[in-house]
């Protein structure tokens, strides 16, 4: 694209020279400079974010309903929006989804907090010492590609059949992508900034706290987002592998049990719950980004 543009510009310049030297041509700005979406009074991007997202959501639900109406899938395999919404409301009303959500979130948040803290510690270790760097590089290369759920049987032997085993696999799922993103953030900090900080006499801890962490925040935020997704997948998968039948199981267990009992609308109700929590967390993280990296001019809104 940029190559062809350059060629085009060159052609014009040489053409202009040949036809009598209209030398303004090469610097004249292109006549159609528009900011995206400004060319129409009722444009999509001018709508408030909430309205835009609601419209997208409504279209998705419409497609879902259309699929139901056109294909008539077997109700033992697939559920429509209306049945799913009813199951969702019923499940929240009788407390089943609420308690399952609470169980899952508790395990997930503890596991993520430990994993994020470990990711931070590993990155700092890698920044301040070469041995630490070798250790973290090796561990990340070995463990990051491994689906954390694969070590659940090991965790069960170490910790027993309890939440600690799940917290362990979630922390493992979260720590490595976090460490990778954070160290990318640290290593891509503008060298001028680092030199300036060194000239000011900043060393190790103050360098990390006052320069590297804020400067690497966009990467750290994307690390948190990736970790959040990894954490969710891991907790749901772990709950599919073992759950307590006594009503204290989490969302994954709720979904799995509903599937075993062929209660398809309940399966969808569980999935919708996960989706809503995902949206809520995304909004929270965006808010944090607006207050930090966007305000500091490091990232576009």
């Amino acid at each position, binding site marked *: 694209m940029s190559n062809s543009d350059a060629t085009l510009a060159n052609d014009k310049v040489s053409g202009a020279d040949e036809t009598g030297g209209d030398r303004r041509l090469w610097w004249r700005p292109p006549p159609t400079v528009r900011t995206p979406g400004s060319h129409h009074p009722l444009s999509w991007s001018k709508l408030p974010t909430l309205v835009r997202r609601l419209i997208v959501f409504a279209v998705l639900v419409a497609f879902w309903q259309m699929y139901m109406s056109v294909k008539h899938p077997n109700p033992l395999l697939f559920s429509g929006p209306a049945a799913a919404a009813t199951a969702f409301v019923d499940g929240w009303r009788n407390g089943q989804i609420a308690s399952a959500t609470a169980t899952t979130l508790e395990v997930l948040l503890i596991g993520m907090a430990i994993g994020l803290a470990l990711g931070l510690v590993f990155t700092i270790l890698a920044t301040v010492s070469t041995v630490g760097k070798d250790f973290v590089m090796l561990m990340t290369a070995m463990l990051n590609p491994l689906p954390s759920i694969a070590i659940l049987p090991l965790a*069960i*032997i170490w910790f027993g059949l309890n939440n600690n085993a799940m917290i362990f696999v979630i922390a493992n799922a979260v720590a490595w992508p976090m460490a990778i993103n954070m160290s990318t953030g640290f290593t891509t900090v503008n060298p001028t900034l680092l030199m300036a900080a060194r000239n000011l006499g900043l060393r190790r801890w103050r360098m990390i706290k006052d320069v590297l962490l804020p400067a690497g925040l966009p990467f750290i935020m994307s690390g948190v987002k990736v970790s959040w997704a990894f954490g969710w997948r891991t907790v749901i998968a772990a709950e599919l592998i073992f759950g307590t039948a006594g009503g204290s199981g989490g969302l994954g267990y709720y979904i799995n049990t509903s599937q075993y009992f*062929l209660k398809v609308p309940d399966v969808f109700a569980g999935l919708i719950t996960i989706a809503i929590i995902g949206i809520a967390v995304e909004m929270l993280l965006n808010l944090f980004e607006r207050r930090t990296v966007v305000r500091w001019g490091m990232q576009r809104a």
Partner: protein
Amino acid sequence: MSLSLIAAACGSSSAAPSSAKSTTSGLHGSLVIATQPDLGYSALNIIDQEGWLTKAMPGVKVTWDTVNSGSTVETGMISGNIDVGAGGVAPFLLGSAKGVGWKLFSSLGDENLELVVKPQITSFKSITSSDRIAVVAPTSIQAIIMKKAAQKYLSNPNALDANLTILSHPVAYQAFKSGTIQGALDAPPFQQEEVAAGGHVLVDSYSLFGPSTFNAAWVMPSYYNSHTQIMKVLFAQIQRAMALLNDHPDQAASIISAYNQGSLSVSAATAAITSSTVRWTVTPQGYLVYGSFMKSIGLISTSPTSVRQIELPTLYGTNGN
């Protein structure tokens, strides 16, 4: 899909009557059979390992799928991706009550399932709230057996629900051996291994429900009716495998061991095949008693009142219950 159906229908009309050993070369179409990694599927595994179906019906494309979860078999059958599925009594009854419509094609054998517990548990009353007992799925026959035992010994079918933990058989065995769970109700050979690891049998399924099928093969009537010749050949091969399991367990064991690619020794397979807890038969058993119990505790809304309601013509006259 519809093309293969038509092809199969044409093939079956011109096919010669089949017997266990005759080659029904006129048959065409496709057949997808799903099993799970478990000795309870031995009859099907022998047919697969020895290639009997392909020899009997060279024109039929036979696909064997090994899946890891009963619910995958169910979903596959409902969606039409699996023609012959197999599984336990309880998931079958649950699906029937939900209107799935599948029917019993052949039992794959009876099995007495044992609840093996650690020595400190001497009776149902001595099970404490911190004791964990593994079953394979919330809708498995093992979970139903636990409910029946809880009803019989603790007067409440749900009394042990909070103790149940959902684990696959191999994981349950490991967890039992390492002491993270205190009881397991799974299947052979794991129940025997758990006894060998210091556990003892607290209750068995025959004492609660009488003899019952462990796994059975299921088929949708729509597939059965449009593929009667293929179904006849398959049933004959299952009977042939049953005869081998009953009359020549050594031979059957070496086939099963080969099927498991050495992860199960011939002697271990022989021990499991000839165990006193197992009986190799095509006759379905226990569906009516399990069904009425599941209905009585509200797990299902309807249960079969006669075995004829849930079986395919292959089983007419086998006196199932």
